[in-house]
């Protein structure tokens, strides 16, 4: 056996070249111009191309998400559900009182506490406070708009704090909502405040820093 094919494997040696470079280039260039009818390669590649086109057609219809740069879903059903979704409770109009409560919780409750009792000696209470319940609603509006600092007396107790305005970025209606909320919560029963009243006070006081106790003393005389 081994004598018959002593060197069957051409290894190591050199892999023989069976075609010159020039003839490879020349013959293939000739073959490229030659069109063979009915070759398997034409048949199978056409089948593949049809498959590709059909796949692309269905896929494009189903998963392109309308070329939307802000759409991260690719199933049509999910996209439809997402686009028609509305947050629970959307459409229910909240009362000024409820809107005021949200703002109060976010901005005021850290000092005056959610129950409006303040913190003895540091932050005055709002519940039952003569400042809040004053029949002239412009007093609480003034304080909320511009802040209040220095020594004051609330429900007979002295306080010496420094409240700055917390509502500089809010519109008149939102300020009115906050004042309404504090005037009608925790047993407080005073009149509602409107955006017009807030606007009127704003016009009156302009842009200013926190009030001091003596500046507002006129309300209690």
């Amino acid at each position: 056996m081994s004598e018959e094919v002593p060197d069957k494997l051409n290894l190591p040696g050199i892999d023989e070249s069976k075609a010159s470079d020039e003839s490879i280039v020349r013959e293939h260039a000739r073959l490229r111009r030659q069109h063979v009818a009915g070759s398997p390669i034409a048949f199978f590649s056409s089948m593949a191309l049809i498959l590709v086109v059909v796949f692309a057609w269905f896929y494009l219809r189903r998963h392109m998400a309308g070329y939307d740069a802000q759409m991260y879903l690719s199933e049509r059903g999910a996209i439809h559900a997402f686009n028609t979704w509305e947050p629970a409770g959307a459409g229910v109009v909240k009362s000024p009182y409820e809107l005021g409560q949200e703002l109060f919780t976010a901005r005021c409750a850290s000092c005056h506490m959610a129950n409006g009792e303040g913190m003895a000696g540091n932050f005055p209470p709002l519940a039952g406070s003569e400042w809040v319940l004053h029949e002239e609603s412009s007093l609480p509006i003034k304080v909320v708009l511009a802040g209040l600092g220095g020594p004051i007396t609330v429900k007979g107790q002295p306080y010496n704090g420094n409240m700055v305005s917390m509502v500089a970025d809010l519109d008149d209606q939102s300020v009115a909502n906050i004042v309404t909320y504090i005037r009608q919560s925790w047993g407080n029963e005073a009149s509602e405040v409107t955006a017009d009243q807030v606007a009127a006070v704003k016009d009156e006081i302009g842009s200013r820093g926190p009030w001091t106790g003596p500046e507002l003393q006129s309300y209690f005389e």
Partner: protein
Amino acid sequence: MNRGPFIFIGVFIVLAFSWANLVHKPVQESGQLAAYFSDSERMPRLLPGEAEQGRQVYQQMGCVSCHTQQSRLESGFDIQRGWGSRQSVARDYIDQSPSLIGDRRLGPDLSNAAAGDRDREWHHLHFYNPQITSKGSNMPSYSFLYDKTAVMGQKSDRALNLPEEFAVESGYQIVPSRRAEALVAYMLSLQVDYDLPEAPNPEKIGL
């Protein structure tokens, strides 16, 4: 096709098409996203300074080889696993450069690594030797980010409380280096707990 320029121009057109469609178009359409403000809080939150340094350590150590920072809604169990609460969207990453999104999960997704009850101590033990906290993990130990120092008088309050079997000889302690502290600060800052209007979550698609 016997001319060089023909091939060049052809290939240029095809590649330019791919680039224009898949790279240029998205960059034009969503390359300038601004942060979202909800109740005057900026979303996504900016990283604290130390966490930003930790991000660099995360990048240099090649953590992205094994950990992704993206969660999927339409596929997989990312939300059930607690790795996220919604689909990650482009706006979550506007502050990240380079972005560490990653596409290989040898370990868990880290986009919400700070969620849950894992504290600083847990993360330090985990980086020092993952076998302490996650026995059987194939995460490498990052003990080279920790210094072994002699105890001078009292043990440092930053020293790790190693369990018995991993303890070092008495008189010594393991103290996190600056890089380890930064890396843990980064881990503790990874949390996507805010909602964005364009971000789908199970509720919004009716799951």
